[in-house]
C-alpha cells in the first residue's frame, strides 16, 4: 500500500532509511524543522538548516522516488532564546516560496513556559500574515495535557487562524478529543517506547473515526522507528479493518491536508511511468 509519513525528521536518518521507506510503500514525507540535539548559535545556523531541508533532503529523497516536503520554524526548545527566535521568525519569509515548503512548523510548547508561549504566538502571527498552514508539536509525558490545552487556547484566541489548515501532532488518548472537536487535524505519533503504540493508534481510529486523523513516525535522531507507519498499517489489517479505511488514514488524509498548501506539488505514484 502507498503511504505518506507526514512527520519525520529525515535529516537525522541515513540514506538507507529512504530506501527502506520506499520499499515499504512510502511515496512522500513531510519534515518539520526541529531541535538538532543542541542549541544553534545564530540565525545563519537556521538559514543553513532550512537550505539543507529544502535543497538536499528533497534531492536525497528523490533518489528513491520519495517526494519530500518541509515546514519551517524555530522549535519550542530553542524558543527559550527569545532574541534568536525573533531573528529566525524574521528570516523565514525568505524561504516561504521555495518548492515543497508547506508552512510553519513544528511550532508548539515543550515545558509550557512563558518564552515558549510568546514565540508560539509570534509564529502564529507570521503564519496568519503569510497565509501559511501550521504544524504543531505538543509536549511529551506529564506536560502534554497542559501544553495541548494551552496551545488550543492560543489558537482559539486568534480569529485569523483557519482550523482546517492546522495540524496538532503527537495527540494521545487524553488530548485527541479536544483537538478534533475544535476542528483541527490531529496527528498520532508512533514512538516505540514512550509514546503511542500502533495498537493504541488503531484504538483511537476506532474511537474517533478517520476524519482529520493522521499517523506519523516522527523518526528522528533519538530512539524511533522510521517504519512505524507500516507497523500501523499492519496493526489495522490484523484488527480486521478494510484497506479503504487504512488508505484513507495513511494516504488520502495527508494528501488532503497538504493540498491546502500553495507549494504542495505532488506526483501520484500511479503516474510515475509517464514522468520518468
Amino acid at each position, binding site marked *: 500500500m502507498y503511504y505518506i509519513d507526514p512527520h519525520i525528521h529525515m535529516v537525522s536518518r541515513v540514506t538507507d532509511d529512504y530506501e527502506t521507506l520506499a520499499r515499504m510503500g512510502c511515496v512522500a514525507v513531510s519534515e518539520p524543522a526541529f531541535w538538532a540535539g543542541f542549541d544553534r548559535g545564530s540565525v545563519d545556523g537556521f538559514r543553513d538548516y532550512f537550505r539543507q531541508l529544502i535543497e538536499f533532503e528533497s534531492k536525497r529523497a528523490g533518489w528513491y522516488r520519495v517526494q519530500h516536503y518541509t515546514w519551517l520554524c524555530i522549535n519550542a526548545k530553542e524558543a527559550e532564546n527569545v532574541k534568536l527566535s525573533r531573528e529566525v521568525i524574521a528570516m523565514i519569509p525568505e524561504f516561504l516560496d521555495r518548492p515543497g515548503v508547506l508552512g510553519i512548523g513544528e511550532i508548539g510548547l515543550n515545558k509550557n513556559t512563558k518564552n515558549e508561549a*510568546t514565540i508560539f504566538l509570534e509564529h502564529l502571527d507570521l503564519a496568519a500574515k503569510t497565509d501559511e498552514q501550521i504544524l504543531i508539536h505538543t509536549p511529551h509525558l506529564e506536560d502534554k495535557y*497542559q501544553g495541548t490545552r494551552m496551545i488550543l487556547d492560543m489558537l482559539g484566541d486568534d480569529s485569523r487562524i483557519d482550523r482546517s489548515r492546522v495540524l496538532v501532532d503527537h495527540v494521545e*488518548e*487524553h488530548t485527541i478529543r479536544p483537538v478534533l472537536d475544535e476542528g483541527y487535524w490531529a496527528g498520532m505519533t508512533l514512538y516505540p517506547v514512550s509514546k503511542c503504540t500502533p495498537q493504541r493508534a488503531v484504538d483511537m481510529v476506532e474511537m474517533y473515526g478517520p476524519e482529520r486523523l493522521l499517523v506519523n513516525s516522527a523518526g528522528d535522531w533519538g530512539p524511533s522507528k522510521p517504519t512505524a507507519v507500516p507497523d500501523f498499517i499492519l496493526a489495522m489489517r490484523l484488527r480486521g479493518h478494510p484497506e479503504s479505511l487504512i488508505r484513507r488514514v495513511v494516504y488520502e488524509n495527508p494528501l488532503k491536508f497538504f493540498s491546502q498548501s500553495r507549494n504542495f506539488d505532488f506526483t501520484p505514484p500511479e503516474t510515475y511511468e509517464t514522468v520518468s
Partner: protein
Amino acid sequence: MPIPLDAPEVLDREFLEIRARLLQVAASLDRIERAEGAVDDDPRLMKIRQALEILAGGDEQRAEKIQLLFSRPYEANWLATFRPTR
C-alpha cells in the same frame, strides 16, 4: 466506528500479553521493595497505586484516565495571567 473483532476474539489474542505486562509491573514493584531505602512517600509511587485502581475499576476510558493521572494540571485562566515576553 464498529470494531471488526468481538470481545472474545480480542481477549484470545491479547490474554497472554496482558498477563505478561501485569507480571512485569508486579516484578517491578517487588524489585523496588527488595531494594535498599524507602520510596513510600514518593508521589510517583502514589500515582502508580492510583493507576492500578483505575485498571481495577469497571469503567471504560481507562487509558485516558491514566494519561490524565500522570499529567500536570491545566488551569483554564492561564492566558489571563500571562504577559508575553517583551
